[in-house]
Every structure is written in structure tokens, then in C-alpha cells.
């Protein structure tokens, strides 16, 4: 389906829209649990507080009937399918509720042989957007409370899902705040840009929330946890913090699908997705590659080609 041709731009997304997605997810989840297509479904359940939702690992029909989709369904659930969450799900085919941005992570994990497509039943969500952080969580999604990543979303349609829940709708005329911020930082003199990041990283408390929610941070031994010998200072101090975030940005280059979960969960408001997006831009320029659009055999940094650009070797 051509998403552009079906564009239905509106000024706000009413709760009814999400309710329709909710109904579709429940119906599908109940069906695949009942007919034992899957052993469980990873979806969202409502939180106690208004305008909140939590990831849920659902294995019964009763639970599946409580699944929801709302603008509070911010999490990228693909993290629950990774090695990092090994053992949480029973062995067997698993259902997962995935927005377009989450689908990119699934495609990336397939590229990296972490997942097999046939082990998944993907309930794709035709997602108009989710809430940003620290905004009013009322029923209606508007320009005022939509997440920064959603302002520039190019994957409203969950291409490649087994079923898609929802019909296409998206907010009109959103300011691309992140692109503007990227341009502002890019225009800075180098020293100023360095100071910008130093200031942000000085607040880092090394809670590792960025790593733990990232679908691609599935290493069983993270470099920054090593202490004999220590590769990156593990104490939360400016030098180690800087090293950690730069190492992570490098390791995600050509892999990060742009879900911006790391930025969302940072309790210290460090704009981490700017780093990931900058690396993605490099990959696009150097290799004409965008991570996670579809599963591929190998990403550009995992292979060697005779005609690779070698101009960086001095």
C-alpha cells in the first residue's frame, strides 16, 4: 500500500481512532492465542495513572481482551524479543504489537539474525503518533503533545506486518523540531558543539536506561560493564559518560532504527536520538543505507566490498 497516496491529514487524533485500533488488536490477539498460532502476545495494558500504558506479556484470552492502543503506548516492544530479555517469553511463535517505528527494529533484529520472521506474528499498528515526554496526557493527540520523533514519522504504515490495525490518519503540518535541532547543532562551531554535548553528558547518571530499552543493545557483555581491564570508566563522571555515549552511538551506527526510546527514557533529558540520527545520516551518505526499512542479509558495516570507499584511510 502506498502510504503517501492515502494520506489523511487531520488537526487532532480523537480517542475513537485509538479505540478502533484497540478493538482490532484485541480481536487479533484473542484469535492467535485461541488457535495456538502463538504462545503469547507482547502488547500494551493501561497503567493506573491517566494517560499511561505499560508493556505486557499476555498469554491468555482474558488478558488479551484487555490489551489497548493509545497515545500512551510509547514503548518499542521489540526489546522483549531480544537476548537481553531472554527467558521472559515461552519458546514458540510470539505475537507482537508493533508501530511502524518498532517494525524497523524488528527488521534490524532479523538482519542481525536475532529473530526469524516465521517466529513472529506481527500485529502492525497504523500509528498516527504517541505522546511526548512531560506533556499533557489528555485524550486527544495534537501538535502540542505529540512526541518529537512522531513529528517526522515516515513509517505510519506498518509495512510487512501480518495484519494491520487502524486506518491511516496523521497530524497535519507538524514542525520538524528534531531536524531543526540537528541543523542548529550542525551549524555550531566545533568547540560549541563539543560544549553542548559535554553539558548534556555531565548530567548522565549512568542508570543505563538508554541501553536497557534499546532493541539493539543486546550484547551479553557490554563493553562499559567490563572492569578487568576497564574499557570505559563505569563511574558517572564527565569523561566516562562522554565515552559511554559516543561508544554507544558508534555501535548503533547502521543499526539503530530511530525509535528514540533511549531519548524518551533518559531521566536526565539527554537528547540521545540526535546522536543516532546523525550517525544514520552518515550511513545514508556513505553507503546509501537506511537501517531497518526491510531485513537485509548484512548491514553495510558488517561486510566488505572491493569498491568500498577507502578515502578515510590516510
Amino acid at each position: 500500500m502506498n502510504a503517501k497516496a492515502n494520506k489523511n491529514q487531520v488537526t487532532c487524533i480523537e480517542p475513537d481512532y485509538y479505540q478502533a485500533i484497540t478493538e482490532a488488536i484485541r480481536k487479533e490477539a484473542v484469535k492467535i492465542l485461541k488457535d495456538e498460532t502463538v504462545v503469547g502476545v507482547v502488547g500494551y495494558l493501561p497503567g493506573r495513572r491517566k494517560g499511561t500504558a505499560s508493556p505486557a506479556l499476555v498469554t491468555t484470552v482474558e488478558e488479551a481482551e484487555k490489551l489497548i492502543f493509545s497515545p500512551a503506548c510509547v514503548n518499542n516492544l521489540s526489546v522483549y524479543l531480544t537476548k537481553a530479555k531472554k527467558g521472559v517469553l515461552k519458546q514458540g511463535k510470539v505475537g507482537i504489537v508493533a508501530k511502524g517505528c518498532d517494525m524497523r527494529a524488528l527488521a534490524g533484529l532479523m538482519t542481525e539474525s536475532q529473530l526469524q520472521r516465521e517466529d513472529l506474528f506481527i500485529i502492525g499498528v497504523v500509528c498516527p503518533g504517541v505522546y511526548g515526554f512531560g506533556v499533557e496526557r489528555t485524550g486527544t493527540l495534537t501538535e502540542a503533545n505529540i512526541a518529537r520523533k512522531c513529528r517526522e514519522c515516515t513509517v505510519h504504515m506498518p509495512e510487512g506486518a501480518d495484519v494491520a490495525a487502524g486506518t491511516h490518519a496523521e497530524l497535519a503540518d507538524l514542525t520538524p523540531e528534531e531536524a531543526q535541532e540537528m541543523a542548529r547543532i550542525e551549524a555550531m562551531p566545533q568547540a560549541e558543539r563539543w560544549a553542548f554535548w559535554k553539558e548534556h553528558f555531565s548530567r548522565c547518571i549512568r542508570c543505563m536506561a538508554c541501553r536497557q530499552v534499546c532493541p539493539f543493545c543486546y550484547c551479553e557483555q557490554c563493553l562499559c560493564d567490563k572492569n578487568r581491564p576497564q574499557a570505559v570508566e563505569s563511574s558517572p563522571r564527565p569523561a566516562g559518560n562522554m565515552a559511554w555515549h559516543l561508544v554507544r552511538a558508534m555501535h548503533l551506527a547502521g543499526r539503530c532504527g530511530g525509535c528514540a526510546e533511549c531519548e524518551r527514557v533518559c531521566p536526565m533529558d539527554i537528547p540521545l536520538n540526535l546522536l543516532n540520527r546523525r550517525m544514520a545520516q552518515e550511513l545514508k551518505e556513505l553507503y546509501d543505507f537506511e537501517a531497518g526499512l526491510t531485513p537485509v542479509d548484512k548491514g553495510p558495516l558488517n561486510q566488505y566490498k572491493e569498491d568500498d570507499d577507502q578515502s578515510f584511510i590516510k
Partner: protein
Amino acid sequence: MPQIITEQNLRNLIDLLVKEAKLVVGPKLSGSVVLYEPLTAGSDLTLDALPRRSSKELFFPICEDILSYKRENGAMKVNDVDRSKFPEAVLIGAPPCDAGSPAILDAVMSWDYKDEFYLERRRKSTIVGIACTKGDDACFCRAVGLAPDAEAGSDLFLTPLKDGSYACNAVTEKGQALVAAHQNLFSEGAGAEPKPFVDQAVAKLDLVKIKKWLEEHFEDPLWEKIADICVGCGACAFICPACHCFDINDEGSTDDGVRRKHWDACGFAKFTNHASGHNPRDVQNKRYRNRIMHKFKYYDDKFGKTLCTGCGRCIRACPVGIDIAEILETINTKQD
């Protein structure tokens, strides 16, 4: 007759304390977040929002050097940190959920091992708490036995009044001394009406009942149900006013380096990983269980206190929406 201080005089007090070379720490806007940071002037004080991290870091910093070492002429020289140089400090503008935490942590920090880094800072600090008239649906201080006007932990306690001034109660000798030394900033009077407190969504919890349930349900399906979604970061513990686990790392080289103490969290998989490779808390829900057990059972067993002030920070910050208040409510209503 209570003492009253106007908002301007509260800011003037901060200016004076800074001039007296005291370390004055209070809520301050730092980039896009409010944090407890050293105030350089009274105008820095920001009382609109609960700081993103708790005030425990005044006593228990994110990271601190505990010694340094250097090999000189073949001999290793170890330099201790001179704790006598820690500055006299005033923590100002901490709501009860933050001001109350040292009163809880003193017990463990001065137990069999005396943590002199913590204790020296405690001795040298005065806490000016402030009644909380803000709050959101994550707040649950009343549920765990505190309150928006709880004075526990504060040396001097301020209550915001409707006319913008504050009623002051000197709770301890330290608080009395602070007022006495700056008496001209305070006036005596009945004062205006106090500002109202915000209602909280979580009803008072029966902590005795919860503790009893925890005692009997170390193994329970609840743990998997609530905690399998935990992704194992340390956000909840790090921003918590009561969590106090730390790690010690030697950083530098074998000839020249620093021994550092820094925050650690029981949610991390490596927290209980033994050198042998065995990990007694091998899955995430066991780690999360420890968080609840430590706060509502173990700490009470040892020190007779609950290791939670109901600030709600972990609820707001949890990447996957784990809601400790909801979990406590669930346990509170359990029949067996």
C-alpha cells in the same frame, strides 16, 4: 507565635549563607531539568517542580573519590580524602519526601560500619524542608506514612502561606541556630492561611500487612506478573531518595589511580553476579522482588523503618511504566 519569612527574605537568606561560604543546595533549573544543585544566589532557587533526582546526593554523591594512590620511587603512596574539608552545608527547599530521606538512611549508614563520608556530610548540614503544595498522580507520600507537611528529617520546616510567605518551625537545634543567626530576616506573627495540599490518588497503605505478605510470599506468581517487563536499568534506584547501594571501582592505572564510590542498583543484572559466574538473582523479576523486599521488609526488619518516602519518582521515570504504588495497593488488598 510562629516565625514568618517572606519569599524575598528566604532568597536573601540564601544570599547570606552563600556569603558565609556555606554550600547551599536547593532546587535549581539545570538545562531542561530541575536538580538539587549548589545555589550561587537566592534567585537560583526554583520551587515550582520536584527535582528530577532526590536530595540524597548532598550526603551520598553520585560519585566520590574515597582515596587516591600513586607509585612514587617504587613505593605506593595512598592518599586519604580529608573529610574535615567537607563544607558546612544547607539543603534548602526539599519537600518532605526528600527532606525525610536522611532520617531513614542514617540508620544504615551508622550501623555496624560507619560510613564516614555520609556521616561527616550529615553532621555538617542543616536541612530546610518545605511543605509540599504541588504533587501529581504519582505522589504517594501519605500512603507510606509521610505527608506533604511531615517535618521528619527537617531541621527547619517551612509552610507556604497564601500570601507567598512561609511559616517556619525550627524542628531541631540546628534549625533554631539557623534562625537565631539570621533573626532579622524572620518576623513573628500569626501569618496568612497555609496553601492547601494536593489530594493523592493512593490511599494509606497498611505497611504492617504488606510486610507480612512479603514475609510469606518470597516465591509468588506476582513477581513474574509485575516484573517480567522490567528492563533492568537503574533509573528507579538512582533517582530514589532512599536507595543507597553503591559500588566501588579503582579507576586509573596500577601505578596511579583513584578509588571511587558510586551509585549502584539492584536492578542491574551484574549487581549480584558472583565471580564464579553464578548469579543468585538470575532473572529480572527476582531483582525487582529485591527492590520491593528491601524497601518494605528487610529495612524494616533491621532498622524499623520503611525505605520509601512516596516521592513517586520511580513511577514517573520507569521506562516500562512499573508503578510501585499500584503494586503496593495490589499487595495491600491481598487476602492470603
